[in-house]
């Protein structure tokens, strides 16, 4: 087992979640979300990783492939994360221009 990787994954996700839960500033929350996504992506890669494996390029050495699918998935996930981050920043700009703050004004609740 690859404890260091999994520990890193857990740490990243925990830090991310902590940020989402505890930070008031929306910018910080989105940074935390990005951290969390990174953690999840790392998890996906770790799953497909075989110690000592090579890149999945056809060269006859089938046994030592790193599983290619997770890497493809991670690529997709990174793209999605990127688009979410971009949208998030747009929204933050809008929010800031409407309210002048990056924290909730607690007008919408209950």
């Amino acid at each position, binding site marked *: 087992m690859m404890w260091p990787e999994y520990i890193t994954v857990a740490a990243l996700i925990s830090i991310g979640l902590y940020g989402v839960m505890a930070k*008031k500033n929306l910018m910080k929350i989105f940074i935390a979300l990005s951290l969390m996504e990174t953690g999840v992506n790392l998890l996906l890669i770790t799953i497909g990783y075989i110690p000592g494996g090579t890149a999945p390029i056809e060269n006859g050495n089938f046994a030592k492939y790193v599983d290619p699918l997770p890497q493809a998935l991670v690529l997709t996930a990174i793209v999605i994360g990127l688009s979410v981050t971009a949208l998030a920043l747009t929204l933050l700009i809008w929010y800031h221009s409407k309210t002048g703050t990056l924290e909730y004004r607690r007008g919408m*609740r*209950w």
Partner: protein
Amino acid sequence: MLELIFAVLLIAAFATLFIKSGRIAAIISLIASAMPLIAVMDWANDFGIKAFSFGVENSMDFSIAGITMHLSITSFAWFFAVMVFSLLPPIFLFSYSFFEKNNGFFPFMLFLITAVFGILLASDFLTLFFFWELMAASSFILVYISRDKKAIMSYLAFSVLSAVLILVGIALLYSQSGTLIFSDIVLNADKVTVSAIILMVAGFAVKSALMPLHAWAPFVYSKADEPFVAFLSGGLSKVGYYGMFFMLFALPGAKILHQYFNSGVATYLLAVIGAISAFIGTLLAFMEDDLRKLLAYSSIAQLGYIAVGFGIGSSLAMAGALFQAFNHAFFKSVLFLAAGAVAYRTGKWKISELGGVGYKMPFTFMAALFAIFALAAIPITSGFAAKWLLYEAAVSNKYIFITPIMLIAGVGAFLYSFRILYGVFLGENRHDDIKEAPLPMIAGMFLLVLPLIIFLIFPGYMLDMMHSALVDAGIGTISHTNYVIRTGTASYNTLAVVIGMMVVMIPAFLIYVLRKQKKVDFKDNFLAGEPYEFYGYISMHAANNFYKPIEDVIMPYLRKGAISFYTALYNAMGRVSDASRKIYTGLSQDYTIYIIIFFFIIVGWLIW
């Protein structure tokens, strides 16, 4: 033919949806509403009553969404159908003048009729429930037209309550017997079946405005359009009682309850509830100032008697209950229509603001007067025969609690009857400028009075009509001729009463009424000839706070009633709602915490 009737009703309903004029819509509705009545009359041949025949078949199957709906007429449904569908043409006749514009009354009334027709014909639970819900929906829209908040809220809430109670009851029965078709259901006296019966009876009782579940009635009756209320009180409440009758005697739930509890405690409880309904409804009725609310409480009271009959369940009681249902259908419709006619001319509902209408609207007054006599069960009306049967049944079963309460409620009926008579139709003449109601209204009301007169002299006809229903339900009938009803212990001869009355009345009538005399202005009676302006404006109308002395005594005991209970419940629920909404703090941070907590809870729950 049966499809044709449904089709005509639905087509008429859709057609009237797009007709602006109330007159044309009324004519269409009148014709359409005659269709089920014709079918019902036609079926009379099946139940031992000679009538004309069109050959309307009495059963039919529809297939819907992979489920078949079975329709067929039974003797007890037929009896209820007679009373419900006879009301409709006169009501539409009345509506011809009542509605200038079609405000949605006609189409939804026709949907309602379709639904009621379906309920009475249903021979499986899906059909019953489908049409029951259709009835609830269309009647809700008719209430919605009234635009009154309390009426809308209470009616929808109680309709849904009744629907879900019935649905859960059906589900319980289905889980026990595995079928929805009435004739295939075999009941056992077990816990599930018993609770199903109780739930369904409660569900049906909502529509019949039985006491703890009546809270919608005063609001709805007092705010919706009068012709609809006439049908709601006259017809729909009977549909609720049809459901109860069906559950208790056709299925037969009463026997199951009896087996399960080893005594008649459950049905006795129903009778007690009915008697309390009658009693408290009466007390509340005569203290009410709004004419329609008064009639609403009076409906609750009068409908309570039917529940007493069902609760007692002997042949006497059932005959009385069905008779009472029939009478109530007609006299209460007349009264609500008369109230509508009065409001149509005067625009007022408060008894303390009305007065002297009867001088200007004598025919309306005549119809209302006869209905009131039937309501108060004066022995010259058919109303008495029904109550007499119920009293006899109660006393012969030695019900020492129910009987006096019922009797005193019967006395109380005189009190609110007088209030209607004096406060609305007689007393100070405040309406010099009004005319008699239009002819269609009067015709509608008199058509509804007609059965009351027929069954006044010949209560035996009524007992003939319900004969096959009672026999089919395994209750048995009572011995009677056309005008004599006999019980084991007493008899009641309507002919003797009527002839005796005529013998006394006619000479007195000749002596006192047929004279040529000067009519006195009623104002001279209490002003002693002084000019009216002499006192400034003093209302000589004593109808305001009429029963004040007794109200002061009774009211403290009635203040904490069902309605205040429901209001308290509503407020408490509101507080719970406000508290529970506090979960949504509006902070995504908190929501994330919820997500984490949820995740750990389900992980914990699943793994350990």
